[in-house]
């Protein structure tokens, strides 16, 4: 073999040798055991300390509160939502105390009216709902049912109420079209209000010749889109959406 080849072979040989040696020392021992990664990394992540303890951790000491809490509406709201991460408190109950928020700013985080919240979720307008009082003065956070059953439908159906209030149907009461049993305010999903079922229902005000105020738009029910029921086109809570 000629000079060039032999010299180059030596140079490359030394380099590759050095690389292989470095590789032997630098690649972590657990790499490749479970896949193309350092297997020990899984244990590193698994060993992180939890900050939230979970509701089960509160029950042994605070059993009465948990009992109350679990038989009322906030059953799905875990303790740590309001009181903060509790693992540190479980480890050192006397040294680490959790917050117990009492200010008005706390409850509207969930219950302040927001149009994007699902319909039926209990919401209030923080500015007008008993403005000077603390929420907990009427609502026990662990048994938050209001002291009096709300009269107005808008207490839970705020979005619909607000939409209706700026629509042509503003002066219509909810009960004009929906029959509501008292039970609906106790178990809302088990006892639902009725809804109109026929075109004639809307026709009481909107059919030609109906006995209603002159300003109300009227159509001939026999010929106006007779294939459909009224609410397939007109949204009853805001009949002509802008």
């Amino acid at each position, binding site marked *: 073999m000629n000079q060039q080849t032999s010299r180059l072979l030596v140079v490359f040989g030394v380099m590759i040798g050095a690389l292989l040696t470095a590789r032997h020392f630098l690649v972590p021992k657990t790499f490749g055991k479970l896949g193309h990664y350092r297997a020990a*990394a899984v244990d590193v992540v698994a060993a992180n300390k939890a900050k939230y303890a979970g509701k089960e951790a509160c029950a042994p000491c605070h059993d009465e509160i948990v009992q109350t809490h679990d038989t009322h509406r906030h059953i799905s709201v875990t303790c740590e939502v309001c009181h903060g991460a509790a693992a540190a408190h479980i480890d050192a109950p006397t040294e680490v105390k959790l917050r117990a928020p009492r200010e008005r700013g706390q409850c509207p*985080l*969930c219950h302040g009216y927001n149009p994007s919240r699902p319909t039926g979720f209990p919401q209030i307008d923080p500015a007008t709902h008993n403005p000077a009082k603390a929420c907990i003065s009427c609502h026990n956070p662990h048994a938050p049912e209001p002291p009096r059953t709300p009269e107005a439908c808008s207490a839970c159906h705020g979005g619909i109420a607000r939409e209706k209030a700026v629509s042509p149907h503003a002066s219509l009461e909810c009960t004009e079209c929906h029959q509501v049993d008292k039970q609906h305010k106790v178990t809302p999903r088990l006892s639902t209000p009725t809804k109109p079922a026929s075109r004639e229902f809307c026709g009481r005000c909107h059919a030609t010749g109906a006995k209603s105020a002159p300003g109300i738009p009227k159509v001939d029910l026999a010929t106006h889109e007779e294939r459909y029921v009224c609410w397939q086109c007109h949204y009853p809570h805001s009949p002509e959406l802008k």
Partner: protein
Amino acid sequence: MRDSEMRLEPSEPTGRRAFLSKALPAFVPLVALLQSGRSEQSQKEAAKQGETRSYRASQHDYAMGVDPSRCIGCGQCAEACKTENDVPEEPFYFRTWIERYSVHSDRETVVSSPNGGIGGFPAVTERGVLRTFFVPKLCNQCANPPCVQVCPVGATFKTQDGVVLVDSSYCIGCRYCIQACPYGARFMHPVTHTAEKCTFCYHRIVKGHVPACVEVCPTQARIFGDLKERASPLMRFRRQNAVQVLKADLNTEPKVYYANLDGEVR
């Protein structure tokens, strides 16, 4: 085996051997009693060292269900996640966040996520809104993760129990995984200079708990579960709902299932 043990045995036991072969069985229960005490001891030690010893990752395949129609946008999940996982508080780093969608009647959709939803959303009532709702977002823990595919060194990977993790001491911080994630789930930690993302609170789930975001959700909008468990809330969720995943056309096989996902959600 030592050489001494390789000697051939005689055909019939005689003498001391005969005695031992008859007497030994009597000692077995005694020895077993002593042994059991010791193995219990070592088992407890193993349990103390890491409950992961008795945890077999290949028996699990974690996934999550999300029902946007239950989400009230309170932001507790995003806040709890930051607390649980020491995520920097600045509004540029999120392992999970909430988006608010407002679909208008003129086909315009407005999306927002102020500070990821932590602290809630302003109660803005707009005119002409057809639908408005909240959507929780997080790492989808894809079964075919594009982030794992592009990591040049193997610092991010899919575990045997279906969770995509990052090895912070191996990551070189090239940010390719962040570019490859179609969902914006990853970020660069400003202090460790490594990639980070939601881990399904791996340190919690291997001990039988649920992720922090699931723990604190007041309306059960998030359901955590194991796809290999035949009876679970997640199983019911998948049976009862029209389930969709985000960006299905990219074939990343996400494991966060959204119930009745609105078509405007990206």
